[in-house]
């Protein structure tokens, strides 16, 4: 659906004749070309996962450099993708919103409020000709201590925020969304442990399907909020990630074998 902007795409404050703001759409393109992010709201927790394409071998591949999942408060975290410096600005804004809410009202910011505030902020940058929209999407996972519920939201470059059972964005979002729909999360939520496995499996599959990634190891960042993490947003324990990675390898090999058998028949 590539259409030429033909002069209507020079500024975020201009509509095209068919009612589109091209600058905002171009910002979404930045997100579509970046690493995949998947979030799942389980019955007893939230899991966020990011696939980090290894930029080049001189970059130190630990979570310290170009960290993609950030804690916004004890009870909330954001996994972002797109133009990474823009994403970092958004995370900084979310941190400020959360700290401000706690300072004023004495309680942790409710997840919906955090998502709304971030949405307002991102939307503001789509209103003026002098500013450009943020080229990043944020997936927000948070726990509401009052209602004892987990909430998953995604905020996009146009400023829209919605709550999700499962969400994917970034390069592999189409394939990831198909896989998530197969899981039927909207009818029957899975558990947090299953969610970790699903996300790891989907991210690994997407990584392997891309021929360019032949021989390159997958860098994954996984974080969760659940009872085991004391309802705080922390990284999924490294031991668990190792287990799950091994499980994913087995699963994919089995599926490959099954496919081969099916083809032979």
């Amino acid at each position: 659906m590539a259409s030429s902007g033909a002069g209507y795409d020079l500024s975020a404050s201009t509509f095209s004749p068919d009612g589109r703001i091209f600058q905002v759409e171009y910002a979404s393109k930045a997100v579509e070309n970046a690493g995949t992010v998947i979030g799942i709201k389980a019955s007893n927790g939230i899991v966020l996962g990011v696939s980090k394409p290894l930029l080049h071998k001189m970059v130190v591949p630990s979570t310290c450099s170009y960290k993609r999942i950030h804690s916004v408060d004890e009870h909330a975290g954001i996994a972002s993708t797109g133009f990474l410096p823009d994403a970092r600005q958004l995370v900084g804004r979310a941190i400020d919103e959360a700290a401000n809410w706690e300072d004023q009202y004495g309680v942790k910011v409710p997840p919906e409020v955090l998502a709304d505030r971030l949405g307002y902020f991102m939307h503001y940058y789509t209103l003026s000709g002098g500013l450009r929209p943020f080229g990043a999407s944020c997936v927000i996972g948070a726990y509401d201590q009052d209602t004892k519920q987990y909430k998953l939201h995604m905020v996009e470059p146009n400023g829209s925020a919605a709550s999700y059972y499962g969400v994917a964005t970034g390069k592999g979002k189409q394939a990831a969304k198909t896989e998530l729909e197969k899981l039927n999360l909207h009818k029957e939520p899975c558990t947090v442990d299953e969610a970790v496995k699903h996300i790891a499996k989907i991210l690994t599959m997407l990584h392997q399907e891309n021929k360019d990634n032949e021989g390159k190891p997958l860098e994954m960042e996984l974080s969760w909020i659940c009872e085991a993490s004391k309802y705080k947003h922390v990284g999924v324990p490294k031991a668990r990630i190792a287990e799950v990675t091994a499980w994913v390898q087995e699963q994919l090999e089995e599926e490959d074998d099954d496919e081969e058998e099916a083809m032979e028949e």
Partner: protein
Amino acid sequence: MLPAAVPSRQHTVQPMVTGTSVLGIVYDKGVLLAADTLLSYGSMAKAQNIPRLHVVENTVIGASGEYSDFQRILEILKAKALEETTTSVMDSLYTEESGMTAENTWNYLRMLLYSRRSKFNPFWNELLVAGKDLKGKPFLGSVDKIGTTVRDNFIATGFGAYLAMPLLREKWRPDLTEGEARALLEDCMKILFFRDCRASPRIQLAKCAYDEVLVSEPYELDTAAAWQAEAYRQSVGELEDDGGW
């Protein structure tokens, strides 16, 4: 003609709801703090079961002076702790250790209190900070409302500086055991109850030792025996031949 509006006061000139002394002592394995649980409103005993020793990360802070300022200081420290441990740290998805020790909390409080005093709007408190220093050794320090900092093996704020410090100076040794330190502090708290009009016998202790930071529930000091002292039961005039002069 409407009367002109009186400008509202922009700077603290006097404390309203106050706490009295806080005592601290370093013993062989850590630090002990003691404070009573009374909040006074001038000469009125306003609230009698209010904790004046609070834990922030792995540090205990005790405050005397204006209680509302102490509450604000605690809010500020909690927000700082959130930044240090959750939102700024590069590795925070996996970090369990906090970067905030008692020593750097003490330094941060110094900056906070000194900058407020420099604007003639002080936090009207004297704070004791207890925990570990940057090298892991037991740490006890104080910060007052004008930003003076003191680090020592035993410190007392408020009236304690006059009544308790002499006792602490006399009895302190570097190899005090926890039991001895506790007995010493309780003795000082009793003296303070007897002689400080704004003190109460309901006290609370806090301990920072090894890796544990604990604050006790408030309990009453046993002062009944003291009222039986000879001097209270017999007038001094009858005690000696010369009438006690």
